[in-house]
């Protein structure tokens, strides 16, 4: 057998807060597409980043085609033929595509940048991968899919024979993702070794020849994807079999109407949205990204200006002017961007839990700390937050535990109406199941839940009925019994399900500029 393109030998890496990789050894065959998968925090991205020279391993050795290499940085890695494509913006957003592509080796004449040459080279690099972009635009103005094309062009143009893709589709629409898959297949045909970091089943099975599973920083298994089932793979990832369940809250009839929204509009964001929410009910809110889902949530939480229409809480009309007001009315919001909107990352888990209810915990202005700790400890336990203690810095916890703390906050605040905006984004499989069970349990105990999610299976599994938004308007309400992915997708996109599927298959990557429409399908590739 030929020398493997990449061989890791006994790689270990420690970060403040966690042992990311522990004695990982595995080999990647030249010219193959090799998936690295595992839950969040399993170390798959870290392994990819070590290969791309972004992290240096604490121990262990790395071989490329049998020769040991040591990278001091991504530049060394690229010189050795390893490039990387990140989830999000990895270059300078404020300068042009052309400059980004030539960064590090700007062609110059007598110290002056030769702009025409820069553009010529950039266009050539993009053509190489079949992409056509305006190279003069600032990179930050492009969609994430286009920015990834630029990263791929930079890697290929830089002579990369091995490319690491780090969860590249996490911010892409279905159509954009399909184009990326096509491009990856083309690269593979040209003999490029692709290392694909992901935890999405369809991607792993549709794209990759081999899959290596990491769990808690250890290498668990490497298997060919042919002959492996999804259930087996998930079992390997989480280390136990996955159980399906039927939401318990559906066993009881919904209670009183606690929230009613009538003809709610917010100029430029959503138009004429009406629905109601009963105690003990989970209502899904589906739609493409940009359809106005989060905006409706923000409006209900007093974060949007210029909202028209009526909102009734417990039958009483209210004008929700601020989050403070919303919280007083018993509304809690788990925002979509946990790190930016959900948590104060400089503070502890304890302080993040009690933040909205400090006044209630205080006598005059004086915080009763024993009470605060008791309350937080109670919810940490109830939500099974895994943390070294109440005072552990929130930044040191995993995504799932961070999200549990955001939820704990609203449970502690005794919110009766919970709006969950992408509650399981960036949360590992185990914690995800726990959060699902918690949402179900809360509803069974009488909380009204509005669930926004881009993962249709999640919405379908948890909701009693599903509202669908398209371009800021409510276009349908689907009862649980009739909710299928195809049906929801058709409503979300406003076309036949068949057409959606067909279109997703059409555009091969980069034949044309990705349309200016930045809306992405909520159904993120691979969560199905």
């Amino acid at each position, binding site marked *: 057998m030929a020398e493997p393109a990449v061989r890791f030998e006994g790689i270990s890496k420690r970060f403040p807060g*966690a042992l990311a990789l522990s004695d990982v050894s595995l080999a990647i065959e030249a010219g193959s597409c090799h998936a690295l998968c595992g839950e969040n925090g399993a170390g798959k991205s870290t392994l990819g980043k070590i290969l791309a020279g972004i992290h240096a391993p604490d121990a262990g050795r790395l071989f490329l085609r049998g020769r040991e290499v040591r990278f001091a940085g991504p530049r060394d890695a690229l010189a050795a033929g390893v490039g990387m494509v990140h989830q999000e913006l990895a270059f300078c957003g404020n300068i042009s595509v052309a400059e980004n592509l030539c960064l590090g080796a700007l062609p110059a004449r007598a110290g002056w940048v030769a702009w025409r040459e820069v553009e010529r080279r950039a266009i050539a690099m993009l053509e190489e991968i079949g992409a056509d972009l305006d190279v003069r635009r600032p990179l930050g103005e492009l969609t994430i899919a286009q920015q990834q094309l630029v990263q791929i062009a930079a890697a290929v143009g830089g002579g990369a024979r091995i490319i690491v893709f780090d969860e590249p589709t996490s911010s892409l629409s279905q159509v954009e993702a399909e184009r990326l898959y096509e491009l990856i297949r083309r690269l593979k045909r040209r003999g490029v070794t692709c290392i694909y970091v992901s935890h999405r089943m369809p991607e792993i099975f549709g794209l990759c020849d081999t899959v290596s599973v990491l769990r808690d920083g250890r290498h668990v298994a490497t298997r060919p994807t042919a002959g492996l089932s999804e259930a087996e793979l998930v079992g390997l990832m989480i280390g136990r079999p996955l159980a399906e369940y039927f939401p318990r809250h559906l066993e009881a009839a919904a209670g009183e109407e606690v929230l009613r929204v009538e003809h709610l509009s917010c100029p430029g964001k959503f138009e004429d949205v009406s629905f109601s929410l009963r105690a003990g009910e989970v209502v899904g809110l589906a739609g493409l990204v940009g359809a106005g889902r989060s905006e409706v949530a923000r409006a209900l939480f007093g974060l949007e200006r210029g909202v028209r229409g009526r909102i009734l809480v417990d039958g009483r009309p209210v004008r929700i002017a601020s*989050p403070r007001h919303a919280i007083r009315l018993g509304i809690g919001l788990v925002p979509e961007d946990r790190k*930016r909107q959900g948590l*104060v990352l400089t503070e502890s888990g304890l302080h993040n839990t009690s933040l909205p209810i400090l006044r209630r915990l205080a006598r005059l*202005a*004086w915080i009763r700390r024993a009470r605060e700790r008791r309350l937080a400890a109670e919810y940490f336990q109830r939500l099974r937050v895994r943390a070294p203690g109440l005072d552990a810095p929130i930044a040191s916890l995993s995504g799932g535990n961070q999200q549990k703390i955001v939820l704990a906050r609203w449970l502690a605040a005794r919110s009766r109406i919970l709006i969950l905006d992408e509650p399981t984004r960036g949360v590992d499989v185990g914690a995800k199941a726990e959060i699902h069970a918690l949402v179900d349990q809360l509803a069974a105990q009488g909380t009204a839940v509005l669930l926004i999610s881009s993962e249709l299976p999640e919405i379908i599994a948890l909701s009693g009925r599903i509202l669908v938004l398209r371009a800021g308007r409510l276009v349908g309400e689907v009862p649980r019994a009739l909710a299928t992915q195809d049906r929801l997708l058709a409503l979300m996109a406003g076309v036949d399900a068949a057409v959606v599927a067909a279109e997703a298959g059409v555009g091969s990557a980069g034949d044309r500029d990705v349309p200016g429409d930045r809306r992405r399908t909520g159904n993120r590739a691979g969560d199905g």
Partner: protein
Amino acid sequence: MRTLARRLLGSQEAGLVLVVAVVTVTLTLLAGSHVDRRTGELINNFWNSNTLIQTATDASFFAIMAIGATVVIIAGGIDLSVGSIYALAGVAMALLVRAAGPMDPVTTVLLGLGISAGVGLLCGLLNGALVVGLGVHPFIVTLGTMWMLRGIAFVVSRAESILVPQPLTAVAKAPLGLGGGLYPVPMLVMLAVTMVGVLYLTRTVMGRHVFAFGGSLEASRFAGLPLNRIQIGVFVVSGLTAGLAAFLGASFYGSASSGDAQGYELYVIAAAVVGGASLSGGKGSALGATLGALLIVLIRQSIRTLHLDQNYEWIVIGCAIIVAVVVDQWSTRAAARRFSRTAALSKSAA
């Protein structure tokens, strides 16, 4: 007792306490001694009540302001106007108390305190209102008010130094039974304000809101915190401490002029930063601010005590600030590593 010791050693300020202690000991060892002419005793040139209280007094005026500045910095802002607030509050106090004519000493003192604290509070309110109302960065707003307020002080005082009535000086220089030309009042006020600052920041709702506000404005918004009130509140606190420092300073020195506390804003910010406050917000402590002020004054004092060339004072202070902040970053990182080890341990135990 052991847990108390451990808490002190593990706390954020432990490194700073150590540095202050090391500087103090070094200074004592190097200072040499002289024979007191009156008593014939051998007295250390640094470790004697006179020099120590003098050093603490020097620190007290801007340590008090540094606690206010720390509150602003924790909230992610900055207050450049504290020196000017000090000048305006001092001048206003001296002018108004004199204009009010002779009164009994207690009324004089209360009036003086009320005026200087009130002026400080109003100036802080102005800063806060401008930051919130105009949506302009605190740096710009307080850069503007820094000149405006000093200008007002200049105009109302007609650029003259105004004498402060005697009862005020009597309070600020009260010997409190020490005698021998020792004036412990500013030092005691500094300690009291430090304590209030520590409690305010760690034990009150407002204090915790300040940390959250500076740590993440967006997350604070989503948690329903009263953002404008917090923003204005931190500037009011800063103004108030400047007013209090002005009361103490003007009373202690017996006069107030529009040129007082010129450049103090930089000493104050330096003390806060040396004390561990992060200019990116969300981090800092009142005790740290006081220790930072003490450290800066100690360094200044060491130049005098060791008979070094006074011309090098600024250079030494500048270096000390950078060194202190770098050391603080190291110890923070070391603490994070310690934490990660215990986290890993507890994880493997689970």
